[in-house]
């Protein structure tokens, strides 16, 4: 026993020596690093370190369906078009784009470009990628992004053949795409990750090509993936074979996966990261005010909305005036300033200002309590009730999260003070909550929506059919449906915009959904990092980024 104890004590001793020795070494290290920074002003290392929060579920363009995977793919791949700093799609892998007069046939001429392994990028690579995603055997959850292409939906549901899909390889450099209907935003879509090409030579030979970094993971974008250490980090390097390689200044990007906002900010403050916060990471809400005061915070609005949906199939929200009363009776600015604290924009409309600039003002004033009371009175009369206390019990649902809960409590309080309505709060776990919303098992419920591409249809389409997957309100309007149908065939962008605005007005007049705020993104970065492009959809691009 004596011997064992002495072993144990010597282990302790070794451990403490380890600690001491390592402590010293680190000090020396950080000293050196500091020196490098000062000395290297003229020749700054172009190595970016960012946080992407979590492991990307898939880096296969056909399987990706989330923003983390999208962030990585946008750096490593190049679609026919790319959304640039001005927020508009520009020719990327395509050199020339021709559109037929009826706007249903797009002819893309590809530029001379290579995959990172030297294979040429051909029209076949696009055809392969798109048909792969549409193939019902390939479990692509975002295949519906390709339903705009003629025959896409039929092929994906197994009713049609992949051979009948409107994708035609004219020659190695020419791709002809036929659409189901005129789609004014099709060139926005071709920049989206489901539309990225896949090196068909590699993918046909090895179906698991996208599972790890290595020689099989070839891409055609500004960067190539050098290392993918699952749940830990991804390392990208500049792609020397990229057609526009001269523009790319960063030599490497290290994407770490830290899922804790406080740690992320601490790492930035400690010089272990160059960027903290959106769009790839998150800032702690508590730190927002301090960062704002220090002048370090950058805020940019993005195409996304935080709203409460009404279940229009149950009392009392089957009454439009009651819905309007509830929507008018909250003070959005106060919620933003005191609860959400992310410099969001109060929303009194559904389509974000980046698509409809008028949405900054909206359809009604914020916090209009007088009007709210009028609507409430009218609604009660229509329902044959004398007093608010006769309203059926109302519950407000949200998924379990501190942020949602605080907002729900604030709104509960506002409804009580301004309308005299008692509302109970009800939270549930995420998947349970989604299930309840989709099956209309709620009264008022929280939902958010982020645009996939820069077009108002993104925010309107979901309310077209009462049984459409994302409607969740049970609301439907013939007038609204007709306007959306009209917008699909309207060739003139101005006229189409107007039609969509009319549709939004119909929606707001009926108020099946109560807008609260438009999302913003907030971030902090190191001072000498420049030209990181964050688009209006909240997508980040490092193609032009560099350190000064």
């Amino acid at each position, binding site marked *: 026993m004596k011997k064992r104890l002495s072993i144990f004590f010597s282990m302790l001793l070794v451990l403490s020596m380890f600690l001491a020795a390592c402590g010293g070494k680190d000090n020396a290290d950080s000293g050196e690093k500091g020196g490098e920074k000062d000395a290297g002003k003229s020749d700054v290392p172009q190595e970016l370190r960012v946080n992407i929060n979590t492991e990307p579920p898939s880096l296969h363009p056909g399987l990706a369906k989330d923003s983390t995977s999208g962030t990585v793919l946008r750096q490593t791949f190049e679609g026919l078009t790319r959304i640039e700093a001005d927020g508009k799609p520009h020719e990327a892998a395509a050199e020339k784009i021709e559109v037929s007069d009826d706007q249903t046939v797009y002819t893309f001429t590809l530029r001379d470009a290579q995959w990172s392994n030297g294979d040429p990028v051909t029209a076949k690579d696009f055809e392969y990628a798109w048909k792969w995603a549409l193939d019902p055997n390939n479990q692509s*959850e975002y295949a519906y992004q390709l339903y705009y292409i003629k025959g896409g939906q039929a092929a994906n549901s197994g009713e049609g053949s992949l051979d009948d899909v409107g994708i035609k390889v004219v020659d190695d450099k020419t791709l002809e795409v036929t659409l189901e209907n005129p789609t004014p935003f099709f060139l926005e879509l071709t920049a989206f990750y489901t539309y990225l090409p896949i090196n068909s030579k590699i993918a046909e030979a090895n179906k698991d090509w996208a599972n790890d970094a290595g020689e099989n993971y070839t891409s055609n974008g500004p960067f190539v993936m050098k290392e993918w250490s699952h749940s830990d980090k991804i390392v990208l390097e500049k792609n020397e074979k990229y057609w526009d390689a001269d523009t790319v200044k960063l030599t490497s990007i290290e994407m770490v996966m830290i899922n804790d906002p406080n740690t992320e900010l601490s790492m930035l403050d400690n010089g272990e990261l160059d960027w903290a916060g959106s769009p790839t990471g998150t800032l702690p809400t508590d730190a927002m005010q301090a960062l704002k005061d220090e002048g370090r915070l950058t805020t940019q609005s993005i195409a996304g909305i935080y709203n409460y949906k009404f279940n229009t199939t149950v009392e009392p929200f089957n009454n439009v005036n009651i819905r309007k009363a509830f929507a008018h009776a909250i003070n959005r600015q106060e919620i933003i300033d005191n609860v959400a604290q992310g410099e969001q924009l109060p929303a009194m409309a559904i389509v974000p200002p980046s698509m409809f600039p008028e949405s900054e003002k909206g359809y009604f004033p914020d916090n209009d309590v007088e009007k709210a009371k009028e609507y409430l009175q009218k609604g009660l009369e229509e329902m044959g009730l004398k007093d608010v206390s006769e309203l059926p019990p109302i519950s407000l649902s949200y998924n379990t999260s501190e942020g949602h809960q605080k907002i729900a409590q604030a709104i509960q309080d506002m409804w009580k003070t301004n309308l005299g309505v008692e509302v109970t709060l009800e939270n549930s776990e995420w998947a349970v909550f989604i299930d309840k919303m989709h099956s209309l098992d709620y009264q008022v419920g929280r939902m958010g929506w982020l645009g996939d591409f820069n077009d108002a249809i993104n925010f309107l389409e979901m309310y077209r059919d009462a049984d459409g997957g994302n409607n969740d309100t049970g609301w439907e309007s013939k007038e609204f449906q007709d306007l959306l149908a009209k917008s699909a065939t309207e060739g003139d962008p101005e006229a189409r915009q107007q039609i969509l605005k009319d549709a939004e007005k119909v929606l707001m007049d009926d108020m099946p959904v109560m807008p609260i705020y438009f999302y913003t993104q907030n971030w902090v970065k190191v001072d000498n990092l420049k030209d990181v492009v964050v688009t209006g959809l909240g997508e980040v691009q490092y193609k032009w980024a560099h350190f000064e």
Partner: protein
Amino acid sequence: MVKYIGKRLLYMIISLWLIVTATFFFMRIAPGNPFTSEKKLPPEIEANLNAHFGLDQPWYAQYWDYLVRILNWDFGPSFKYKSQTVNDLINEGFPVSAMLGAEALLLAVSFGILLGIIAALKHNRWPDYTAMIIAVLGISVPSFIMATFLQYFLAIKMGLFPVARWETFMHTILPALALAATPMAFIARLTRSSMLEVLSNDYIKTAKAKGLSRGVITVKHAIRNALLPVVTYMGPLTAGILTGSFVIERIFGIPGLGAHFVTSINNRDYTVIMGVTVFYSILLLVSILLVDIAYGFIDPRIKLAGGKKGE
């Protein structure tokens, strides 16, 4: 002994089967499925996915399929992480969690026992109070507070360690300390109380009467017996700590197994839920068995097989 272990193994298999069955059914009762998301999938795509993952099969077929898979140690693909199978997740995550856990375990056991012994020997004097204050702090301060505290002072203010991530040995120290704090405190208290009890026993008095030195009594007679409750606690602790902590791994950005226990349930990632549950259960059952076997060596009064009752 062989008969005893054989019997225990049989019980383990039965427990494992019960765990698998319960997990399978609870998992299926929970609303939602792996494809639940804010943007609802078109029905034809959902049908494709269900067919591919076999979710369109009747429950007994799926249940049987899971049992066969577990027997083959093949948990199948993850629903969420399409580039990895569940076996990949475990094979990559477990070594990281186990390494961190082993470090924390070493710290917890060595310092815990040390503090406990000091406290017991200096009963009701200042070393006792100091050790117990440390222990109470360790138990009552939650690990995420401890982690943030360590990050703030040792990493940001003093610059001794990196804030987070899993790269070098230096990166492992703060998470190991944060992870070790609670079990260390617990072990210290356990050791102290059982030491005190042992020290008041007759055979210690006999040893003293024989004229043995204090050191010999402590090491040879007291500690050996006092460690028994600690060993009991070591079983579940080892299984728990080696499979990783969700909170600590999240705060320090460690690519371990701990996160999967929580996120797989949020994602309704059926195969991952099943895989990590089975893996954890096996680890837990084996470590409990090892603890029971270890009793026999530490305490001769406990006989695993062939012993007579009331001995």
